[in-house]
């Protein structure tokens, strides 16, 4: 999970590393994600969002599709490290 200066930089990095290009997220969207995930994290009752909550959070921000589905099997099993192209 990394920052990039522009889409051109993301594409250049994917080309150089062989990792696939994934959906791009704007900084204002990332802030909303950070708030949803962490704004109560210092409270004892806090907990990570569960899969259904994750889908709702992503959906509210327009982040939809298999990539954002926490229970999707569209990308197969494996070690969580995508195969380089």
């Amino acid at each position, binding site marked *: 999970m990394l920052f*990039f200066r522009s889409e051109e930089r993301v594409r250049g990095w994917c080309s150089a590393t062989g990792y696939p290009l994934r959906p791009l997220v704007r900084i204002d969207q990332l802030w909303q994600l950070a708030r949803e995930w962490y704004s109560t994290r210092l409270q004892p009752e806090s907990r990570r969002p569960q899969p259904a909550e994750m889908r709702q959070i992503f959906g509210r921000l327009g982040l939809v599709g298999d990539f954002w589905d926490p229970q999707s099997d569209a990308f197969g099993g494996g070690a969580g490290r995508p195969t380089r192209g």
Partner: protein
Amino acid sequence: MEPERAAKRAIYQHFASLGSRPSVHEIAARVGAPVPEMREIFRRLREQRVLVLEADGESIRMAPPFSGIPTQHRVAAAGVSYYANCAWDALGIPAALQRPTTVHSRCEQSLEPLELEVSTDGPEPCDWLFHCVVPAAQWWDDIVFT
């Protein structure tokens, strides 16, 4: 407060106050529990994905959004310096602290530095982008890589 919740609270209070990870001994002392019991609590918190531990089974690598080790994502707030696990967590720290911060990171391709002011209302206008290569369903298969 039961020991597991007390430990979680103490771990996050330590990170928020000092920016660094607490040891199992420090949390045991803070909560008033024996160290072996606290090691077991740390293990359970790992199973619940509250913590990520080092290979020694007790040193905290991650208490998201906080990192227990230095990373390329640093957050400064009120004279305290924090490390985040990733770009998402770099904004997660200001969200958790709910105070003005400055996020220091970089473009992974060009290595151009990013310095982003984040108020309690959110970051200043910024046209940088966030990119993650791992699908959400696989984030915890290898959370350190993610």
